[in-house]
Each structure stands twice: as structure tokens, then as C-alpha cells.
């Protein structure tokens, strides 16, 4: 659990599409995302950004949440939140 501060949602998502990049490109075109490429070398997890979504928000984007939830090819997705990290 993060501590008491509310999460700050950013305009990018992580998705898992086991069919790979081509399917992600289709998904991106369909919902207006920009495919920023795979997160891991094996190409199952992808990083998407949506220029139409505000860069930082206190609430998640329900519309895209619904889109990704209903798409049969998306096994998992997560809208990204800001992570507070400090140098030591």
C-alpha cells in the first residue's frame, strides 16, 4: 500500500497483449494511443501513451479503462501513477 497520499495518474498505460506488437498497434490506432514499445525484451508487455489524456490527474481515466477492459486481446492493463522516488 502506498502511504496516505492519493495516487497521481499519468497519461500512460502498461498493457499485456500476448499476441505482440502488431496487435498492440491495432489497439493503439483504435483508441488513439501511441505505442511506446515493449517494456520487457520478450514483447508481451507494452507501454502506451494517450496524448488526449491530461498528463497528471487525481482520478484514473475511466473511458480508456473501459476500452481496454472490453478488448478481448488485452490480458492485463494498468494506468501508470507517479512514483515518488528520492536519491540517497
Amino acid at each position, binding site marked *: *500500500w*502506498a*502511504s*496516505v497520499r492519493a495516487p497521481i495518474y*499519468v497519461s*500512460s498505460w*502498461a498493457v499485456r497483449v500476448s499476441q505482440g506488437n502488431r496487435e498492440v498497434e491495432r489497439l493503439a490506432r483504435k483508441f488513439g494511443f501511441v505505442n511506446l514499445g515493449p*517494456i*520487457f*525484451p520478450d514483447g508481451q*508487455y507494452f*507501454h502506451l501513451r494517450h496524448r488526449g489524456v491530461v498528463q497528471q490527474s487525481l482520478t484514473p481515466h475511466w473511458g480508456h479503462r473501459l476500452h481496454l477492459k472490453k478488448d478481448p486481446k488485452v490480458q492485463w492493463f*494498468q494506468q*501508470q*501513477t*507517479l*512514483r*515518488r*522516488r*528520492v*536519491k*540517497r
Partner: protein
Amino acid sequence: SVVVPTDPWFSKQWYMNSEAQPDLSVLQAWGQGLSGQGIVVSVLDDGIEKDHPDLWANYDPLASYDFNDYDPDPQPRYTPSDENRHGTRCAGEVAAMADNGFCGVGVAFNARIGGVRMLDGTITDVIEAQSLSLQPQHIHIYSASWGPEDDGRTVDGPGILTREAFRRGVTKGRGGLGTLFIWASGNGGLHYDDCNCDGYTNSIHTLSVGSTTQQGRVPWYSEACASTLTTTYSSGVATDPQIVSAAASTGSPPQALPSQPGLLTSLLPHRCDLAPSQSCFENANPGRAQWLTPVIPALWEAEAGGSRAAGGSSPLDPPSPILPLIYIRKNVSACAGRHNSIRSLEHVQAQLTLSYSRRGDLEISLTSPMGTRSTLVAIRPLDVSTEGYNNWVFMSTHFWDENPQGVWTLGLENKGYYFNTGMLYRYTLLLYGTAEDMTARPTGPQVTSSACVQRDTEGLCQVCDGPAYILGRLCLAYCPPRFFNHTRLVTARPGHTAALALRVCSSCHSSCYTCRGGSLKDCTSCPPSSTLDQQQGSCVGPTTPDSSPRLRAAACPQHRCPASAMVLGLLAMTLQGLVLCSMSMDLPPQTWLSRARATPTKPQVRLPAGT
């Protein structure tokens, strides 16, 4: 010969030039040519200067990248206040060039060094996961000196993707040997922070490094931490000798970066195919021989299948109120009597789900059957959260080498406001360890100081220059469990008159724990699950699917398969039913689950204490 760099600030690098006691024997190691050759390190920070006079020769572009905005040139962008020099200083302490007449020198001055720029922009789970997954087959070590805020009130850790990145690195990185993630433990000393509340530092996948000043004092910024695996020299207050930062754009400022020497230490010996125990670090004055041993911490051994895990979980039905002081005692058998029982502990994790009116007032401790008490988290006066802990994993390395069997005691004590209240919903104890009988280890130095003086083309040792036994790439004073020592005659080579008598360690039969020969009937002692037939000289016990040298995922008999038991356990929790598995016959059924993993796949090699 001893190599002494001719850099202007080397004389000030007290932690390397033999001034500090205990001495880290850096110069002797350099004398043997151990200087990070062949190792690639990536510093996950705000980028490093690739044209710096201390770094340009060792800079590795493949280990450098900018994940925030994919800038083709991931060097730091310095602000007027020179803020983004954190990564460069880290990199310099690791691999600053030797004898270049500038600043000081890095301990691993021949290592390749790269820098990921990720801290100077938006940080998300994706950014962290990508940074920790950069070129996993090219980069050996990822160094991170960052984490959740050290404000004494945060409980935070890696996200889903970052945890996946750790898991992939450990299991697939470095060609399957496991990537090494070195993490600077927290700097929240001033805020009474505890690094067990930092999910990166207390992760089973990271090597957490603490700090000490030259005099062995705890620096002001250092925080309590039961999960620290090793400690390194670092700077303290202004009056303490400082760590020289070998590479910074503006000269060589003596600023401290707590993780560096520890990182450097881990760089030098780079025979990474074996995994020693942490006990390599226990020797307060590591001798030269210690530099010969790989210093990959034992937890990699755990991940590579060389160790075992046992554990148990217990949802409470109904949840138990947390009184001002409660103790929960459980008798744990750690798979005793089974072929994968644990006899020697390494890491211990306690995973708790509880609510509490003022989280920071609750001190949580764990006491082992042998009486060692480890404070998993002490009072944190600034943590006023009412959210408690949800499946939070606390880790301790304080029980290392102990026998886990017996009564474990979990202590929850309210050290704050008298009227604090809370409920304990679930607790899970995970034990990581090996089957080695520590009491059977011979006392005295285990790994001889003799180095391998002749290797074959694969790097395997051919000749040790002292009374030692050859095992793979090492020279050992005795052969560890699962091996027996004997002398092998090697036919004389052309130009040599006499045959060579090599003292070597060879594998016992897989059913034996110790033996005097390689046959089934040469056993001298057996693994816990079987007994020695004195007449036959062989081990009698349940045949296990794991006795073959290949890795098997589930070690317990099927109906107790840990994964399914855990799933059942979770179902049970949701259905408020009792846990269906039990760990040991002498336990009440709802107490513990048994979860054990594979027996060692390859001969279990573990460097004994003092190595």
C-alpha cells in the same frame, strides 16, 4: 605485485589504500589482477557523463539509456546547482580509471560502466521496470541509490511490473546466473525511518547495502534495517573521513554515497558461476583469499535452485485484536523429515496483514527458535497512518545459518499512545535456506589462500598452489557436502617426466549427503529425509523425484504442493475457512502451510564461514 594508482586523490581514498581497519585488501586484490575486468555495471540514476576524464575509457553505451524521454544522449543535464551529478559520482566510485592523473580511482577500475537516466523525470512502474530490465544479458550489476521517500512515514515498494523485472532478472539475467541488483538502504536516519518499510531494500531480489563510517559508527543518515545483507564504508559527519567521489564535473568533492564501496566490493571477483553464502562477508578482516571467491550473495543461490524455501501462512478467523503486547508462537518444522527440509537458514520473511490506529507506534519483532530476536520494524514516530500493513513483507538476515526448526515468536508491541488499537488478519512466515548441516563444517579457514595457478580453456582450475582441493574454478581447503576429496593422477604431459597428482573434489552419489566415494554405497551421512544403512553404506529413504540432478519446481508431495496450497490458503481466507494444508504433524492443522522448493540442481556448493 601491489598496484598503487598514481591519482592525486588516491591517498585520500582511505577505504581502499589500507588505511581503514578492517582493511578491505583492495590493493592485494588489484595485485592479483582483480579489478572488475569483464563486468558491466549500470547505475540507475540521473545519467553519467560519458566524456568525463575518469569515465570515458570505461563508458559502456549499451548499459546507458534515458527512459524518461528516450533522449539519444542519456548524459545528465546539469542544473545551475549541479544537482544531476548523483549518478556520475556513483559511477566514478565504481569504475573511475586508474593512473589518469585525475581525482581518485574506482575499485573496479577495469569494469565497464553505464548510466540510466531515470530519476530526473516522471517515474512510473513502467520506467522502473524498463530501467531494471535494460540489456539483462549484457549488464551484470544494476546499482540503485534511490527509493521511496525516507521520511519515516512511507510504506512503499516496487509495482507489479518492477517486481516482474526483478523476477526476470534473477531467473534469466546473466545467462541464467541471475542479475545482481544492489540497492543502497535508506537514508532516513534523521526521521527514524526503517528500511523494512522500503520494498526495494527488503526485497528478496536485491542486495541491500548499509553504511558505516571509518570508525565503525552508524552515519547520521543511516536507518535501522533488519534486511541489510552487507555494509560498506561511507562518509559520516564532517569530522569523519569522507568517501572521495572519484568522478564529478567539478573536481573531486568528498561527498558520500553510501552504496559505493559495497558495490565496489562486489565487483572485483568476477567468477560469477558460483554463489557463495553471505558468510563470505562475516569475516571482519577479509583476507586476500576472500577476494578470490565470487561475492554473489546466497540469495541467488536460492533463486538458482540451490536453496530451499519453506513457509506457512495463517489467516486468523476471527482476526486477532492487537493488545499492547502480544506474542504469537508457532512450532515450525521447516519440512523436517522431507527431502527438502531446511537445516540452515538464510533469509527469513514475515508477511503481515494488520490494521492499526497509528502504524508507526507498532514495533514488530521476530524471534527464532535459537533465541535470536530481530526487530522487523521499530517505532516510527512520524508514521501516523491508520492503514496498517497489507500483505507487507518484512525481511531479516539476522537468523543466517541458524536451524529453523522449533518455536518462532512474532511480537507486536504498542510503543506509542496507550489507546492504540488494531487487528491482525493474517501472517505468513517464509524461510529461505539450505540443507547443509552447519554444525558439520570444520572450523578454521575453509578456503585456502592459494589461488588457482593454472586453468584450462574453460576456466576450470587445473592446479592450486597449496594444499587445496580443486572444485570447478576454486581451490578449497576441504570438500563441501555432496563432494568427496581424492587424488587423481594426470598423465605426464609432453616435456614433463612425472605424472601429476591432483587433489580434487568429486561428486558423491546424489542420494548421499557426505561420502567417501562416488558410488551409491559410499555414503557417510544422508540428507534429512533418509537414514544411513551402516551395513550397506547407503542412504535409505523415500525416493524423491528430485534426487536426479535436474531442477524440479515442486518438492513437496503433490497433495501438499506449495503453490496449490497457497491458492487453497487464499481461498480459505476469502471463505473464512480453515487452511487446508498443514506443515508438520505436530502442528494444529490451521497453523502453517508448507511450501518448499527444489532441491539443488547441481552439486550444492556453498563457501563456508571465513571464506
